[in-house]
């Protein structure tokens, strides 16, 4: 099997533990001190779906995403991801992380490692992959984000957009079943944003299951199979991308209005 084929998302039904939906949040509640940040959040994401979470600053989008990857504890509710019960005290976090990739606004590349070493690290450490094989995989992942020629450079030698694409490649190399993206273009200027969005569009086209938080409404319309509008810690409205054109609530209609300005 070629490395390219390895990077392709898993075909439906190949893993019995991961019954659809791939990600399910049910009544998730989370507070930071006295502030209720998630107030009964529920949504589902099916295999191959691209779910886009939108909403005002502070509405809990990042927190929801972080709960899915067990980066935040939550007090109530359940989250199932690829067969892992994230709310369970006995959650095997490392097993969860094998199935979930996450990319942040700040790329968080390891500055002392080359681009290629950044990507090779997890496959060699977590999957005990041999160096040569991991390097091959890194090259494939880099080609996929259009950076095949940057393998031996260091992160600081790359533009923000390129660094973000490396971060995506680094996640992809672990062949996750779900990818989470938290405002991955917010720190980039429009041209670099376009580069990164193009990569993400490619992933969507290839059938990768994705949940992403973004303020790029045009992009959301284009790739989303489902939009989740969050307001004050709740899923206020959700539905297909077309819901942005006929908002049911005045909050979303105001949000879309300001978003189009």
């Amino acid at each position: 099997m070629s490395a390219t084929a390895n990077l392709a998302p898993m075909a439906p039904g190949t893993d019995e533990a991961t019954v659809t939906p791939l990600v399910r949040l049910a009544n998730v509640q989370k507070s930071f001190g006295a502030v209720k940040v998630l107030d009964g959040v529920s949504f589902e994401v099916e295999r191959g779906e691209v779910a886009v979470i939108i909403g005002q600053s502070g509405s809990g989008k990042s927190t929801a995403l972080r709960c899915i990857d067990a980066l935040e504890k939550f007090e109530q509710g359940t989250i199932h991801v690829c067969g892992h019960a994230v709310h369970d005290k006995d959650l095997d976090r490392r097993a969860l992380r094998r199935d979930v990739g996450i990319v942040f606004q700040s790329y968080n590349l390891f500055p002392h490692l080359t681009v290629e070493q950044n990507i090779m690290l997890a496959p060699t450490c977590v999957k005990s992959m041999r160096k040569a094989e991991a390097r091959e995989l890194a090259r494939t992942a880099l080609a996929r984000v259009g950076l095949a020629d940057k393998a031996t450079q260091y992160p600081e030698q790359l533009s923000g957009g390129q660094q973000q694409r490396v971060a995506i490649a680094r996640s992809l190399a672990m062949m996750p079943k779900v990818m989470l993206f938290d405002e991955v273009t917010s720190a980039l200027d429009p041209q670099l944003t376009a580069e990164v969005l193009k990569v993400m569009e490619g992933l969507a086209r290839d059938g990768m299951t994705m949940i992403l938080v973004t303020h790029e409404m045009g992009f959301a319309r284009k790739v989303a199979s489902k939009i989740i509008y969050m307001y004050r810690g709740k899923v206020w409205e959700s539905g297909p991308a077309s819901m942005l054109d006929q908002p049911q609530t005045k909050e979303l209609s105001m949000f879309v209005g300001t978003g189009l300005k």
Partner: protein
Amino acid sequence: MGYHFDFAALLPYWRDFAMGILLTLQLSAVSTVLGFVLGTLCAIGRSDGTRLIRTSLAIYIEVIRNTPLLVQIFLVYFGIATLGIHVSANMAAVTALVVNVVAYTSEIMRAGLESIHKSQLEAADCLGLSRAQIYWHVILRPAIERVYPALTSQYVLLMLASSITSQISAEELTAVANRIQSDTFRSFETYIIVGILYILLSFVVRIAFWAFGQGLFVRRRKLGTPL
């Protein structure tokens, strides 16, 4: 000022000086390696250990940093003897130097570890790396790189401080000098020579650290930029 310098009187002792230098280098090298490894582990323990570990380490570090090295050396030397264990003066010297330098290394390395942004750990954690793997692959090297100048100074200081172990008759350079000056009555000359030798030794330590750094910090070697 009618002092008449006579360095020639020291010439017959060149072999003793050489042996002294050798032992000083050996004491320093062994305590540097042990001190660095254990000091780093202490730093990790202090930031990541259980409350008991963190408290114990904090007490140990404060005790060491607030007592004279000479007293520590005597405590180790006589302490070990009191326990009924027979060790050579050199062994006691290394032990004392390690006990001392571990505390300082721990403080320096802690600053290094703390300089690594939390988001780096989170990224590694999200990729599925274990705690140990995160330390080894993600934190340690940049942490060392950030505090490398401080570490280098500390270990030059350690080499110089090893002269105090002459007090428990470890036959390092200063002990050799003490003996030679009492044999020759050429104290001033002897300590001038020894001073110069220590300067050269400091240079050797700095070069060793520089070379090690070149090997460890590949990115800096290639790009020349600070981390």
